[in-house]
């Protein structure tokens, strides 16, 4: 067993974990963060995507011990005071989900994509979410949602872009 201390969605957790435990297992089985899901066993599908210190990672490809001392943001930590993150809102507005199983990972990856490239072209969006599989939507409305969110998250366009949200996390809001 290894002892880890991790901040997840703004709360600090200390736990003893098996060295082989994956971050996604830690989130789901130990913390009850079942919003993050598992879709494959070869890190192809991206359903388990979360942010680790602000970068998107497939949490099936990270050991829980690697999150020691780090800050993890999951789909469950995106809302602020009952307000959806602009990316969540854009997924809803653009019908970018059907069964919703890929959605948490897809949203987390899309936010990361806009962090790197705030104004991506359709081609850049498609390349940017290539590591996340969706079987329902054909991706078209996901692309639309990311474009919509990008237009709303441009500097000054919306107060709830992730940069702001992260500060709230650091302040201990859950």
């Amino acid at each position, binding site marked *: 067993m290894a002892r880890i201390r991790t901040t997840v969605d703004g709360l600090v957790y200390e736990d003893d974990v098996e060295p082989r435990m994956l971050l996604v297992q830690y989130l789901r089985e130990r913390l009850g963060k079942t919003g993050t899901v598992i879709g494959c066993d070869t890190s192809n599908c991206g359903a388990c995507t979360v942010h680790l210190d602000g970068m998107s990672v497939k949490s099936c490809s990270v050991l829980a011990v690697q999150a020691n001392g780090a800050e993890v943001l999951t789909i469950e930590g995106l809302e602020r005071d009952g307000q959806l993150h602009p990316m969540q809102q854009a997924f809803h507005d653009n019908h970018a989900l059907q069964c919703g199983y890929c959605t948490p990972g897809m949203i987390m990856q899309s936010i990361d994509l806009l962090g790197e490239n705030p104004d991506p072209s359709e081609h850049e969006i498609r390349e940017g979410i*290539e590591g996340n599989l969706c079987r329902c*939507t054909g991706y078209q409305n996901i692309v639309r949602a990311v474009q919509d969110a990008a237009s709303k998250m441009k500097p000054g366009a919306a107060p709830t872009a992730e940069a702001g949200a992260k500060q709230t996390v650091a302040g201990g809001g859950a």
Partner: protein
Amino acid sequence: MTTTENASTPAPEIGRDRRRKEDRRLITGRTRWTDNQALTGLLHIAIVRSPFAHATIKGIDTSTAKQVPGVVAVYTAADIGADQVQLPCAWPITKDMKAPQRPALAGSRVNFAGEGVAVVVARSAAIAKDAAEQVEVDYEELEPVLDMEEAIKDGATLVHPEIGTNENAQWVFDSGEAGSGGSVAEALQKAESADDQIVVRRRFRQQRLVPVFMEPRSTVVDPNAEQLTMWSSTQVPHILKTMLALTLGLPEHKIRVIAPDVGGGFGGKIAVAPEEVVTLLVAQKTGKPVKWTETRSESLLTAHHGRDQIQDLTMSVTKDGQITGLDVKLLADMGAYLGLVGPGVPILGAFMFNAIYKIPAYRFDCTNVFTTKTLTDAYRGAGRPEATFGIERMMDEVALELGMEPMEFRQKNWIKHEEFPYTTVSTLTYDTGNYEAATEQALQMFDYDGLRREQQERRQRGDVKQLGIGISTFTEMCGLAPSRVLGSLDYGAGGWETASIRMQPTGKAEVVVGVSPHGQGHETAFSQIVADQLGVPFEDVEILHGDTQSSYKGLDTYGSRSLAVGGIAVVKAAEKVIEKAKPIAAHMLEASEGDLEFSGGKFTVKGTDKGVGIQDIALAVFAAHDYPEGIEPDIDAHATFDPENFSFPHGTHLCAVEVDTETGFVQLYKYVCVDDVGNVINPLIVEGQVHGGLAQGIAQALFEEAAYDDQGTLLSGTLVDYTLPTAADLISFDTANTTTASTTNPLGVKGVGEAGTIASTPAVVNSVLDAIRHLGVSDIDMPTTPYRVWTAIQSASGHAGRADEADVASPGAGLGSTASDISKGDTQGGHL
């Protein structure tokens, strides 16, 4: 008064692009997937699976596995009676169909790689998986049975020696015998000897696919309550409940099945899965709640596959392009066992090979074959994509032989809009449709003539990237199904659907439906229907589904039936609510029932401004202080709807691809589809269904295949090898709708869940071939991967794969060389 009424009547909900009610929990992670269930004392199981396709089990040693700390038990099939179970097949397609026993775990012989032979029960899933590796199974390998044509030859190794054959059943439809058309044998014979006819024969291969719902299957069974409760990631909670009772001899009223949030199905979760039964048996044996959740690799290996047919088509046609006969011979791979509806899947195609065309003589002859592979069953479209692929590929091939523009050939043979209702050669009556309208719009959106010109220019320039254009004009049968029709096809159940409406004291409506969604947006669409029917706000409607305790009766979700059958049950229930409310309204208004009219959620007395709302009546019957003598103080209602006919969506799909003649890489260039799905409840949801359907159909054409090696080992057993399309593999599609309302249901709806998948595959393959036919390529098996396309170009006779060496002027050089201005109605064009 009219003015006032209009002002107070809310805008209709049907047709609005409402954002979905169900999104909130899904975008915030507050989901209820089966694997999220965490009951106190929950045990986890892992299934020990055979690495061999065909083998005798000589012995199983569980002693080491039992020693692993945290392991509660290790059971072989016999320990829990799993080898004695006969998992159900609900569709015995013929009286003499051969059906082997399908156990929940194999006892003495395994018949496909991945079949379960033992189960480990442990404190955690990780421990169970670790211990499963410690179970020693002694196998004696048998010959695998992999090739359908070899399997039905005399002397072939038998998958199931006890049934004496590898043939499950042969199912034949002959229009001559049915009286719905002529004899195909005669038609072909006549065509062979006639100067003015040709006969075209082609063989097409429908590769094996995997549905790949994103949520892996999961089942939790809690045996500790009065009722045994099963949560399962299933499309069919009601069928599962009844089948568990019948299969295991359990009293049905002691079983409760819950399908919570279900992450996609596409037919792949229409099943009574061996793992569901094993989870239940282990829960009974241990007396503890038990969970099984599969890994993706387990899912690809053991959840049922789809398609897998060899199609031999023969079409006779006059030289001026009139089809005179169509003969279809199929071999359909069942895999090792029969799934819940597996044998019936190819049979659904019997009604769809004739498609939108007027075919005077037709024969369909399908032989289902057992092999030592994972079983096949429903996958999005189920039988209809296979048929549509066959006929739409054939239409191109015959047009090519005739030297005719492929769309012109289709136009010459399809049912004209003024000919509806039209009874087809396979005996279905298409109620409505307008193939001309959908096609005209699609051609315009696509800029068909412009793309043909571009194609021609690229040919002449000898571009490395050649352009191909593919067509698919399709129809499908939706709204499964009229119960009497299912009875005539020997299906084991009916095709009705139910809905109940429970009016709350505060006027809110709880609507309980038998169908249950796994991504389709039922909660939103049904709320829109109820809002219009009862005149209550959209927000005041709650849809309950997927729990057999609340939704006690239903036949579940598949075959694009939720709206066309389930949605109509909702309408019927709402009509009953209004009917029951009417005498109470009359009593409250002190008027006679005959003087009342209902509109916008309100009963009014004709010619007065007196009225009472349905939500007020709900409160009045709750209080029940004052209501008429002789009736019950209740306006709740239940309805069952059994359709009289299928519905028949149709559409025209046009695909353009660029094929790199040096690498074989196929890039989607443009995709246009115009679908007629009848009246649209929610255009946003309809568009989404089409997008997703297209992606799956295109994936069959270009990307996906469940491939086995010569020992029967699944080669595409992970998502590394089974290549789902990513966002980068696809393009944005141009979609639109034309509308001819269905006349067989009061909403005029047809269904949309499967349309994109059914239509798109042949459009894409036709376009790939159209791009490189001038290089001498005549066919490529699906998926048309770069390697296959490159190889086809390389091996095409006389050409080394260079576009500039191509002979584009010779007869049969390709459809692209026969372009004509068909959107202007130039039916004379198209010859070389």
